[in-house]
Structure formats: structure tokens, C-alpha cells
């Protein structure tokens, strides 16, 4: 075989002429990143609200329909904001390095998000839900929203790192990135931990844990890659000393 060739350049630039042999690798059926992200985020958005607004479908075995308390209402607002933000970021903020991913990812990712969405919503909006003290919840929801906005700011910074169609790596800087390589993940984890505490729901804590277990290896990879590229030699910058994902810990 040969080495994979960069996209966007004419074949002649690689010395390929009539009679050359080209090797193709079949990546399997592909689907656009934005398409996958939209469906994996729209599912939890719709399912959570469906469980909230349609208790007769979600809890057919329970006849009591107590009024939702403020904690449950704030949880609906936070959840909706989170996934609406993700959808908007997919279309207006994120720049994807690859255009497509294997279609299997669509089913895998949607299963993950949709199942957790329904699972968490079922417990928070349950007729037998026990709300934690209101003052505590309000403080925790405020923390969660702050983390959400911090995450948004991180995404905006990351979207503006590369100029034009450049595929070059750039050292992220500004805001939390001055201290943490993957500050966006840090903010995301903080938001979900705060949400779990605000709603005092094990299901939400399980989701926060599952997300953390995925984000930590990604953060380690990203950090290693940046440190490898920015080694301070041959005029390249040296990657500054930063936390990988959890300040003061790791």
C-alpha cells in the first residue's frame, strides 16, 4: 500500500499519472458529523420533555398526577437548554476536522443518549420524586448554568483557533484554557455533577460518571498530542504546563 493522501489537492501534485496504481480503503457507509450530532441531541431533548408532559404514557401504572415542583421545572429548563445549546453549537460553532463518520456510530451514539435521556427523565419527573431542599437546588442549578456558559465560551474559543481552512494545531489560550488543556470537558463534567446534585438523582449521577469516563481518555490523548507537537524545538512553541482536565488533581 501507500500513504494516505491529503484531501483537496489534485492527484498530479503527488506524482500520480496515467498508469499509476492507486489504493482505496473502504471506510464503510459514512454519515455526516452534523447529522449524527443533531439526532443524538434531538432525541434526549424530545424524550425528556415527552416524559415530563405525558405522565399518562410514562407512568401508566400510576394514577396520581401530583403537580411538578420547582426543582422538576428547573431540571426541565436546564436539560432543554443543554441539548438546544448542543444542537446550535453543532450547526453554528463547531468546526469538524472530518466530514463524516461510520454510520454505525449513529446507532451507537443515539442509543447511548436516548436511553440515558429517557432513563433520567423517568426518575426526575416520577410522581414519587422526592425533591431536595429548594434553596440548595437553586444554588446548584445556578452553578450548573454557569458551567454551561463556561463550556459555551470554551467552544467559541476553540472554534476560532484555526483561521480559514487551516488544519494546523494551535495552542488554545484564554479563559480556562490558560490553566486546563480540555477546559471544555471540565465545564461539561461540572455542569452534570451540579445537575445531579441539584436534582439529587442517581440516574443523573450515573450519566455524569459515564460521560466523565469517556472524556478523561480523550483529554489525555489531546494533552499528549499537543505536548508532542509543541515540543519547543525547531522554532515551535513549547506547550505550557497545564492541567489535563481536573485542576489541582490531574
Amino acid at each position, binding site marked *: 500500500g501507500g500513504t494516505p493522501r491529503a484531501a483537496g489537492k489534485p492527484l498530479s501534485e503527488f506524482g500520480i499519472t496515467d498508469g499509476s496504481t492507486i489504493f482505496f480503503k473502504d471506510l464503510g457507509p459514512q454519515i455526516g458529523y452534523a447529522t449524527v450530532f443533531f439526532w443524538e441531541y434531538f432525541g434526549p431533548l424530545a424524550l425528556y420533555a415527552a416524559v415530563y408532559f405525558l405522565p399518562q404514557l410514562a407512568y401508566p401504572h400510576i394514577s396520581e398526577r401530583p403537580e411538578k415542583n420547582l426543582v422538576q421545572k428547573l431540571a426541565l429548563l436546564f436539560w432543554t437548554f443543554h441539548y438546544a445549546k448542543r444542537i446550535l453549537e453543532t450547526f453554528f460553532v463547531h468546526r469538524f476536522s472530518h466530514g463524516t463518520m461510520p454510520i454505525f456510530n449513529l446507532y451507537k451514539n443515539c442509543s447511548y443518549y436516548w436511553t440515558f435521556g429517557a432513563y433520567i427523565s423517568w*426518575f*426526575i419527573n*416520577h410522581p*414519587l*420524586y*422526592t425533591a*431536595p431542599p429548594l434553596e440548595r437546588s437553586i444554588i446548584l442549578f445556578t452553578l450548573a448554568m454557569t458551567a454551561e456558559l463556561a463550556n459555551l465560551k470554551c467552544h467559541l474559543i476553540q472554534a476560532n483557533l484555526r483561521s480559514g481552512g487551516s488544519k494546523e494545531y494551535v495552542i488554545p489560550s484564554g479563559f480556562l484554557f490558560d490553566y486546563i488543556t480540555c477546559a471544555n470537558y471540565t465545564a461539561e463534567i461540572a455542569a452534570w455533577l451540579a445537575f445531579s446534585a441539584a*436534582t*439529587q*438523582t*442517581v*440516574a443523573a449521577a450515573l450519566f455524569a460518571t459515564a460521560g466523565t469516563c469517556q472524556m478523561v481518555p480523550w483529554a489525555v490523548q489531546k494533552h499528549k498530542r499537543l505536548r508532542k507537537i509543541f515540543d519547543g524545538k525547531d522554532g515551535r512553541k513549547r506547550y505550557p504546563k497545564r492541567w489535563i482536565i481536573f485542576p489541582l488533581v490531574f
Partner: protein
Amino acid sequence: MARADTAYLLLYNLAQSIGWATALVQTVLSLTRHPSGDQVYSAAGLTVRACQGLAALEIFHAAAGLVRGSPVVALLQWAGRSNCLYAVLHCIPQLWPSSAVAVLFLAWSLSEVVRYPWYATSLAGGSPAWLTWARYTLFIPLYPAGVAAEMWVLYSGLPWIASRRLHSLALPNSANFAFDYHWFTIGLLVIYLPVWFNLYSYMLSQRRKKVGKRPSATKTE
């Protein structure tokens, strides 16, 4: 691999080999004295629980890179067997006298008493051909027997799990969490067959690689 790592793994595999050999002997002796198999759990239960508990280390071996394989797979395999043994069988004494327990312990101990020595000899320089053959052949009857026995235990435990609300949590509570172990066990039974079928096919394909094609017997007239 570092010498200390090899030494540790050798020790681990030796310990498990001895443990499972003990379980096998206890099971067989119990069957000779009580052929119905109703004393097997009393005879070998503690040994089997000890070996299975120790086997949790294998998850860390995979996570630390000491052995090949995914720690997630190791966790799932350990959790599946442990759930059957600790969460169901041990918790429901009414199941202990059943002959399925004898089948279960025989299937497990016969497989392990081959597998752990095979790992140990592989580490020590190379497994003898007969041991490799045993490791990649005995599973053919032992896996289905073991799976059938495990499923029998889970299925038979269902009435007691339901009536005692075993390992279950109901709403309302301050953690806003509920878990119905009865439904969980039913779900587990549903996925047992496809999961084990996959594992079985994988072992069969591994067998072709490690043991090779057996020369076909030539017919003589």
C-alpha cells in the same frame, strides 16, 4: 514484560489453578458420596466463591496492561459469573440442592483447571501441545453446559427474587432511584444466549488458529 510482572502473574495463575483443582475435587467427592448432587454447594461453595472473588484481579491485570484484552470485557465476564454465583445462587439456599449446581461447578472447575495452568505455562516459556489442545477443545462441551447451568440458576431464582424483592430498591427514596432485580435478571437471561454465542464462535475461530486443522482420517477399505 518485566520479571516482577511475570512472577506475579505466575503466582496468580498458580493460586487459581490450586483453588479450582480443590473445587473440582470437592465437587467430585461430594458427588461420589451423594450422587444426587444435593451436597455440592455445601462441599465446594466456599472454594468457588473464593476463586471467583480473587478473579476480580483479572480486571486490573487487563487495565494495567499486564495481560492482553480489554478491561471492560474482563469486567463483564467477571460480573456475569459473579452475579450468578453471589447475587443469586448464594442468596437463595433453596437452589443449593439442585443438580444444576453440580453441573455448574463441574463445568466451571473443569474449564478453569485447564485454563489457568495453560496461562501459567505460556508465561513460563510455552505450553505443551496437549495442554493447548485441552484448553482449546474442552470448552466445546463445557461452555454450553456452564451457560445452561447458569441460566437455570438465574431462571429458577426468579420466584424468590420476586417474592423477597431481592437486591431491589423502590421509590420513593431520597436518591430518587429504583432498581428491579427481577426484571434485570429477566433481561439478563434474554441477552445471555447471543452474548455467549459470540464468545463461543470466537473461541472456535481461536481454536482453528491455535490447534490447527486436524488431519482427516484416511479411510482404508
